[in-house]
C-alpha cells in the first residue's frame, strides 16, 4: 500500500531529507505500522462524531483585554529578548539571521 515513492513524497511534505538506505528502511517500518493500524477498518463508525478534546472543553477564549498583571497567578513571564536571541542558530549581535528566501 505504501511504497518508496510515496514515502519520498511524504518526507518532502515533512521537510526531512532521506538517504537511500534510510528511505528503504523507513518504508518497511511504515508498511509495518500502517498494516497494524488497518484493523480500524473493521470498526463500524457510522454516525460517530470524532473525539477531539478528551474531557469536553470547547472553544476556550479569554476576553480581549490586555491583562494588567501576569496572566498566570504563579508564573512571572521570563521572556527576556537576549535569552531568546541567543537560542537562534543564526544569531549575531542583536539580530536573528535567517537564510535567504527570495531571490
Amino acid at each position, binding site marked *: 500500500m505504501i511504497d518508496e515513492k510515496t514515502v519520498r513524497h511524504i518526507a518532502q511534505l515533512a521537510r526531512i531529507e532521506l538517504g537511500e538506505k534510510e528511505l528503504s528502511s523507513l518504508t518497511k517500518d511504515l508498511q509495518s505500522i500502517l498494516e497494524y493500524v488497518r484493523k480500524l477498518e473493521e470498526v463500524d463508525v457510522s454516525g460517530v462524531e470524532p473525539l477531539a*478534546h478528551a474531557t469536553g472543553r470547547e472553544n476556550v477564549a479569554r476576553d480581549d483585554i490586555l491583562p494588567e498583571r501576569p496572566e498566570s497567578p504563579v508564573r512571572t513571564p521570563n521572556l527576556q529578548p537576549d535569552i531568546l536571541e541567543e537560542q537562534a542558530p543564526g544569531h549575531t549581535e542583536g539580530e536573528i539571521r535567517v537564510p535567504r528566501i527570495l531571490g
Partner: protein
Amino acid sequence: MEDPTKLSVTEAAVHFRDGALKPSELTEAYLAAIESQNPELNAYLDVFADDAREAAKRADARFAEDAPRGPLDGIPLAVKDNILIAGKRATAGSKILEPYVASYDATAVARLRAAGAIFLGKTNLDEFAMGSSTENSAFGPAKNPIDPARVPGGSSGGSAVAVAADLASAALGSETGGSVRQPAAFCGVVGLKPTYGSVSRSGLIAMASSLDQIGPFGKTVEDVELLFSEISGHDPLDATTHPEPEFRRGGTRFGVAPHRVDEGNSGAGHPRNLRIGLPKEYFGEGLDDRIRKEVMRAVDSLRVQGAQVREVSLPYSPYALAVYYLVMPSEVSANLARFDGIRYGASLLRETTRRQLQHAASADAKQRENVVNFWDVYFETRRKFFGDEPKRRILVGTFALSSGYYDAYYARAQKVRALIKRDFDRVFQEVDVLVTPTSPTLPFRFGERTQDPVSMYLADIYTVSANIAGIPALSVPFGAVEDEEKLFPVGVQLMAQAFAEPLLFSVGKLLESANFS
C-alpha cells in the same frame, strides 16, 4: 537516622519540621548518590548541584524561622527533560535540542518552585517522549536499577529510575500513551497519569497535544497525591486545562475529597462500598501468567475487605493501540514542525553562518550562489538531528493527514476514539474503579524490541486507552515476580473516570497497606 535518600516525601517533611533533618542535608545526600550511581544508571542528563544547594540553603532558613511554605518545601525533585526549567537546558532526549536553553518555567515547575521544592536535575527519556524503554534517547538509555541489563521502561525512564534508585525524593514525568505508568511498573514505583486537562501543558515540549499530560512519580501513593495536588489546576496559559470547580467534583459515590491534600487526612476509602471492575480484554492472551497472579492477589486483598468485584467488558479495547498510533503521530507531525533550525536548537545554520555571511556579501557571484537556502536548513537539519523514531512517527502522521488519506486514517481514528471513550463512560456506571495490569510483561532486555517498531509499541497496550479517553490512571507496585534471581514488583493499574483522582489515591493506599502486610 537511616539513609535519608530512602525517605518518602512525607517522611522527609516530618523530619524537616522536627529539625531531625535539614533540607540541605537531604539535597547533599541525593547529590552524592547521583554522583556515585548516575554514571551507571544514566537517569540524569543534567544535574544542578550549585542551584540545588543554594535553594536548599534557602529552605533551611525557612524551616529555621519556622516558616516553611508547605509539605513540599525543601524536597528535592527530578524533572523529565521535556519539561522546561528556566535557564536550564532542555533536550527532550534529542540532538536537535542539544544546545537549547529554556527561557521559562513550565507551569508545573513554577508551582513546585513556589512551594519550595528543589530541582536536582533533568532526567533521561526516549527522544521527544517517543518510546517505552529510553532506548530512543539520543544520549544513551537509562538502566533499570533492579536489573541494569533491562530497560527501565519509557518514555519517562530516567524519572522512574531516579525515584526507584533513591536519586530523588520524587519526580515529574510526562504521559502520552503510558510513559509514566509503564516505567513506574518496570521500576517498582508509583506513577500517575492525571485526567487530561488537570495539569497545565505549558512548558511541556509538545508531543501529541490531545493526549499529553505531566504526571508525578513517587515512592508512595501519598507522595504522588501531594505532587498532583500541587501541580494541578486551571492555567490561563493552557486553554485545554479545566476550570477549578471541575476538580472538586471527584466523580464517585465516595463523595468528594478535596483534591488539595489536607495535612493529616489520609483519605482512606471505604472498601465495602467499592465496586471494582476487571475488564476481560486486559486479562487475555499475551499477559504473563505470573503478572496476572499478582494482579489477582491485589484484587483479592480488596475483596477480603468487602469490595465487590465483577468482570466487565471494554469491547473497543483491541483498537486502542491502533487509534493511538494514528492520532498520536498525526499530532506529532504538527508539533515537531517547529524544529526547523531557525529559532532554536541544532541547525545547519550553526555550522555555516559565519561562512554564509561572508559568501552572501561576496563580490564573487559563484560564492553568492553557494549560500545555503532555507530548504537546505529545514531538510538537512531535520535529517541530521532527528533520531529514527521521531522520523518514523512524523512520516506516519504526515501520511495520515495528507490529502486523500485523512478520512480513512486520522478522521476514522478519532471516531474510534469516541467509541473507546464511550466504553469507559458506560462501564463507570456499573463500577467505580477498573483494575488491570499496567504492563503485559516484565521489564525486557536492551535490544529485545528495537528491531521491530510495532513490537515496542505493544508495550503500551494496557496503558494507551486511558490517554485516549482522557481518564486518570495510577500504577501501584504490588507483590513481585522472580525472574533470573531478581525480584520485579508488579505494576497494578487503577483507572477511574475523569477527575476521580481522589478515588485512585484511596484505592492505591489500600493496595499499599495490603502489600506491606
